[in-house]
């Protein structure tokens, strides 16, 4: 059996996915929501599910989509404000090479986000060469 046969997970392999709080798909019911047993925190994707989707994408010949899912898996546990702060630093004229590399290091050491760290470091090299760090406002 190919990993592609697991898709869609909701239908073919529901037992392979859990909510971030460890609940199964079948636990997410309207009654559970009304009883307060299921909250916003349950309705989110896990790194495991994203890695699984990455493998499925790769089996379908979509290498870059798989890479994106792997990067996303690293982002799952990174708090929203850190994500927004990092995104902001990646925009033109917001940071310099040193601060961008420092942010990459934070992601690497604090959140074990190796792929993202490398990705940001790669950006920093090109930004410097192309003058993207120049302040715009």
């Amino acid at each position, binding site marked *: 059996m190919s990993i592609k046969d697991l898709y*869609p997970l909701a239908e073919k392999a529901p037992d392979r996915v859990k*909510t971030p709080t460890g609940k199964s798909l079948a636990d997410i*019911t309207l009654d559970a*929501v009304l009883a307060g047993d299921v909250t916003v925190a349950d309705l989110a994707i896990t790194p495991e*599910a994203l890695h699984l989707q990455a493998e499925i*994408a790769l089996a379908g010949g979509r*290498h870059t989509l798989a890479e*994106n899912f792997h990067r996303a898996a690293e982002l799952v546990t990174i708090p929203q404000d850190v994500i927004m702060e990092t995104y902001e630093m990646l925009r033109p004229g917001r940071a310099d090479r040193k601060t961008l590399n420092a942010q990459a290091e934070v992601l690497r050491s604090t959140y074990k986000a190796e792929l993202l760290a490398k990705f940001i470091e790669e950006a920093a090299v090109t930004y410097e060469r192309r003058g993207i760090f120049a302040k715009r406002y």
Partner: protein
Amino acid sequence: MTNSTDTNRWRRFSDWDERMLRHDLFAAEDPEAGFSVFKSPYDPIAGATIKSGRIVSLDGKPEKDFDILDEFIARHHLDPDLVEEAMAMDDGEIARMLVDINVPREKLERLARGMTPAKLANVVAQLSSLEVAFAYSKMRQRKTPGNQAHVTNAKDDPLQLAADAATAAELGFDELETTMRVSSNSWANALACTVGASVGRGDALFQCSIEEAEELRIGMAGLATYAETISVYGTEKAFIDGDDTPWSKAFLTAAYASRGIKARCTSGAGAELLMGFHEKKSVLYLEARCLCVQRAMGIQGTQNGGVDGAALTASMPGGVRELMAENLIAVWLGLECASGNDARTSESEIRVGAKITPLLLAGSDLITSGQGSINKYDNTFNASLFNGEEIEEYLTLQRDFEVDGGLTPLDEERALGLRIRAVEALTAVFEELDLATVTTSMVQSVVFASGSDQTDSFTAGQVTPISEAIKNRNITAVDVVRALAKRGFRDEAENLLFMLKQRVTGDYLQTSAIFRDHKIISALNDPNDYSGPATGYRMDEKRWSDVKSVRGTLTKESVLATEALGKERFPDWLFDDGTAEPGTDRHEVVIGVSPAFGAEMHRTSAGHGLPDVINAITSGISGGGGRARLVRILHTADTSFVGLSAAKLSGSGIGIGIQSKGTAVLHRSDRLPHLNLELFSNAPLVLLDHYKQLGWNAARHTFGEAPEPVVVPFRGEALSARFHARVAILFALETEMTDPDAKPVQLTLSPTGA
């Protein structure tokens, strides 16, 4: 009438000046100014070199000169293992593979991973418009076509958004996209569309288009299930002016996926030109760069095909062909494609209809990246190619070509029911979450309204505090689920929860994912497998039955039922009086009527009652000094033969033939059947006065005169479109009543012997 001699201009040009087309602009190609479509002299020569597995030059540029797009494409799009093979191939050979049903899609997708932007552009430039559309139908990702709606209004009225979202989902739109007049209303708009989308079908994806960071926040709150504002530009300077880089956009793309939200990019020809940073390159080459960047980012799909630059591109020669060609590059790169057609590229309805047709025939993941489900003036994105006003035209095109454009004719009662349900559901949510009070009159005004001009509901200013409350109180879609369920909207609560649950598995993050019947279909489990006739997507019987049932479809039963109504208005008025014999009166005009005339059929196609028609003809005949005699011809229903048969019975040799539908002929006994004296062929245009004049002319013919023929004014109406389907059904009644052996029957206007 204006004086025709005061100008030396052929006045057809003045007529053409008045056409809507003349509002459109047509731009000449001028590469220096950035106006080139498929090829600019400034486009680079396609090429790539590899040293130790690393791309060291790309499309004529050495590594040290790579701009941010080149760098990103070299590192993340191009597969060094494929570059040599793909780049060495002849453009024409690859182009032929694109339209060859024997070359599988996967083989071409593999080659694309080794091709540079200039190479991709060169290859598609080899294809004619027809070939581009054909290649698109083969290369597009998901088998089942879909469509996306714009749901907005001029007041940011959440009640109308909810009603219109529910209506759009019922029409079959797989995705609903909203945006606002006032940016601070985004949360209210998103919540309103969320509730509207939960009504009825309940599995349409929905999004709110706003600034990147805010859109992500709205998505995280569950008030959007997809995003498509990740804009990408084809030159470095345009990218920087857009306040992003390929890396920042790729980071954002991963952020969406990490929150379980489907995302796609936006790009399109003409964007760089509008932003003033085109580098004198062709719009196709720049878009090819955008698309390579997008694939490199690892996004699952794109909306391209001009989008905001579509009208600018369409102003150039071959521009519409280019818009399709860039769609083709997108799907060739394995991206989901929401294929543009979301901007009104012309004021000419003919150009609009022509623009949609190739993509409609080819099918697309989303045929438009936003079709106006609302009226033009309510579209906050600006008018789409097709809009609320024109939805029935779109439905008819689907039926004409037997293609699935993703939409289904609306049942009028059901649509109204869904609108009421959506507005009531949102009212309940507003009350339950203490966001706003909704009055009955607001509800009433919205559910029946075609557009916001007709509503008396929230204004944009009144929506802002609602939107701020949703944002500041951190209200999420789960709160909406609870509110809906608590107030008895359990189906809607279930539907919304179903959509939220999707983010746990991430199934809909895969390429070209949409929902049908609460099941996911994407390029993975519904891959486009077109490989020639009888393969790929075909509508099943149920779907075709839905698609073809446009409003007002005639059946024999419905036509005959309408005709039967006429019978009650006209009790028997024509009476048989034995076999008709030849007349001897030299000023006689015999009026021959067709078999069903006044028996089964009672009105002409112009709507005149048949007694009124006979009255007009006979009064014309007597006014002209003739004497009318009525006979029914039974051996034929053809106007010419009915008329000639009447003429042969006439003492003067002059006769009139008339069919139930009102087609009439003036005939003379010595002429050939189809060589008559006068003919009213456009029955729907004939007035009673014309019938009277025909009678008068007939009478004057009996005196050997040659009166001026009656001219029934015709202004170019599409009469066959307006009448033929009905006429063909009715005419069958006439022919069914013919009897080749039956003799003509003398008719009187009162019962025999009375």
